């Protein structure tokens, strides 16, 4: 069953057609990859799904509901969480607090209940901290919980972004180049982590340049070039696709 449906999505920046009538659908429970040469419009597609950019045309549906044009925070609450290509953590705050940001949309207390220190409000706080710690254990950062986020290594900052996204109990997690800046060891651990995320029943949609990771982790791939979809298939088939080979060789990218 399809969890996320992207229909004829189009986005223009001035004269540049960044995303041109792209459609694909992500089945529930899959690890789905979005690949393509630099500047192909992959991150823009993510930003269109999560409501960071407004669509020029087309539509996005999630779990049967039309989410086109909904504000980002509402989309997160509906069950789509994301990480950022350029790491965006709350760098002065602790690792734990960063994860609590992701938990925010599953909590209810507001300013009045906080000032009254109601019993349920305190319980909710405790549970949120417990959940955040559990997510930190899940990605392997529990020992760092009280350190400021800015002190983490690059690879660990990526993991923290994943923990923050997971804390919102998403049905779909969108990872934008999760292996960027990671060494081989870290990347291997990441492949394992992605598998464990899927085992929790969370659908994964990812952009990645590291082809070994894509080939190992993904079950289905969509290939973009110049904002257009040029292929969609299983990894092994995509690897043979002449259009895809052309796109990568033509752009001088030797990862493939």
């Amino acid at each position, binding site marked *: 069953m399809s969890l996320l449906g992207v229909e004829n999505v189009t986005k223009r920046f001035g004269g540049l057609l960044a995303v041109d009538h792209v459609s694909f659908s992500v089945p529930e429970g899959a690890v789905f990859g979005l690949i393509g040469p630099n500047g192909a419009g992959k991150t823009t597609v993510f930003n269109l799904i*999560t409501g*960071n950019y407004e669509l020029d045309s087309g539509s996005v549906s999630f779990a049967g509901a039309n989410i086109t044009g909904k*504000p*980002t*925070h509402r989309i*997160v*609450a509906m069950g789509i*969480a*994301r990480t*950022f290509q350029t790491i*965006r*953590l*709350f*760098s*002065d*705050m*602790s690792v*734990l*607090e960063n994860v*609590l*940001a*992701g938990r*925010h*949309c599953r*909590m209810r*207390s*507001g*300013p009045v209940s*906080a*000032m009254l*220190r109601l019993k349920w*409000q305190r319980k*909710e*706080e*405790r*549970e*949120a*901290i*417990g*959940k955040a*710690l*559990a*997510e930190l254990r*899940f990605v392997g950062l*529990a020992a760092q*919980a*009280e350190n*400021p986020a800015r002190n983490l290594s690059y690879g660990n900052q990526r993991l923290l972004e994943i923990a*923050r*996204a*997971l804390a*919102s109990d998403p049905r779909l997690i969108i990872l934008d180049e999760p292996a960027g800046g990671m060494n081989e060891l870290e990347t291997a651990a990441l492949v394992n982590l992605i598998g464990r995320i899927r085992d*929790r029943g969370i659908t994964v949609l990812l952009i990645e340049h590291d082809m070994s990771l894509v080939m190992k982790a993904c079950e289905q791939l969509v290939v973009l070039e110049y904002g257009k979809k040029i292929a969609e298939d299983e990894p092994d088939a995509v690897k043979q696709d002449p259009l895809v080979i052309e796109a990568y060789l033509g752009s001088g990218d030797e990862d493939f």
Partner: protein
Amino acid sequence: MKPDADNIRKGAYAAVAVLWILAPLYLDKYWTDVLNNVAIYAALGLSLNIILGYGGMFHMGHAAFFAIGAYTTAIVNTAWGVPVLWLMPFAGIAAGVFAVAVARPIIHLRGDYLLIVTIGMVEIVRIALVNNVFGITGGANGIFGISSPSIFGRQINGVVAPGHYFYLLTVFLGATIILFSLLEHSRFGRALKFTCSDEVAATGSGINAAGYKLAAFVIGAVWAGMTGTLYAAKIGFISPESFSFWESVIMFMIVILGGSGSIPGVLLGAILIIGLPELFQGLQQYRLLIFGIVLVVMMIFRPQGILPPAPRKYPVDKLEKQEVSL
């Protein structure tokens, strides 16, 4: 941080609190009144801190909300004789409603653009008061004859008995401190800090950044409005000059000098900004000059403010053991 450093800090706060509470016993009327002003500005600083410190919005027009609270109190009290303390919630609501109306269209403006718009807002409010808008503000002369608060039938006159008024203000300030530190360490306070730190990341984590910014504005405004009641009732007289742009600047300096986002910092900021010019009185005409130099020097030596916010501690150890299903 070493655990004993934490205790030293707590001990120091307790000592200051005791000194504060006993102040009317060892200070004369004049200095007690200075402390009353410190208390009022401390409450104003704490309310601005929600907007500027946690929310990170460059707001230099806080005196407008203070003015609306004070004028609401003055107008209703002098016209219908409603006891001033009853008017506190109404003053807060009036300021809050005004804040919603004003903040909605401007809240998305970036840093310095928001700064000048809030300056414009406070100037417009002051000019409206001077021009006796709706014929109820008394123009440039302001409003006289606001009654003193009374508690259990006993009048508390801020001019005759500043020592009594001191305790009224201290109760209000104490409540403000407790409520706002609960707020700071809650889901709401965190959401504001996330928004301040990185709005895109906050929204991407599921936080309604625009909504929280507006809520911060309203809470700050409501509190400044309520503080306005206590100010108006203190001397029984208000005029537009008490709510000028310069007043907003003073509140702004209290927050930044003390430590943006830090409750102890803001309290210290209020003591310094309101208290120092009084201490420098012996310097006569050089008083403000020295004050200006002190401001520059303190900012250079403590750019984060004198008491920047301490990192938040969570009961990690206690919760580490408990298993949570993912």
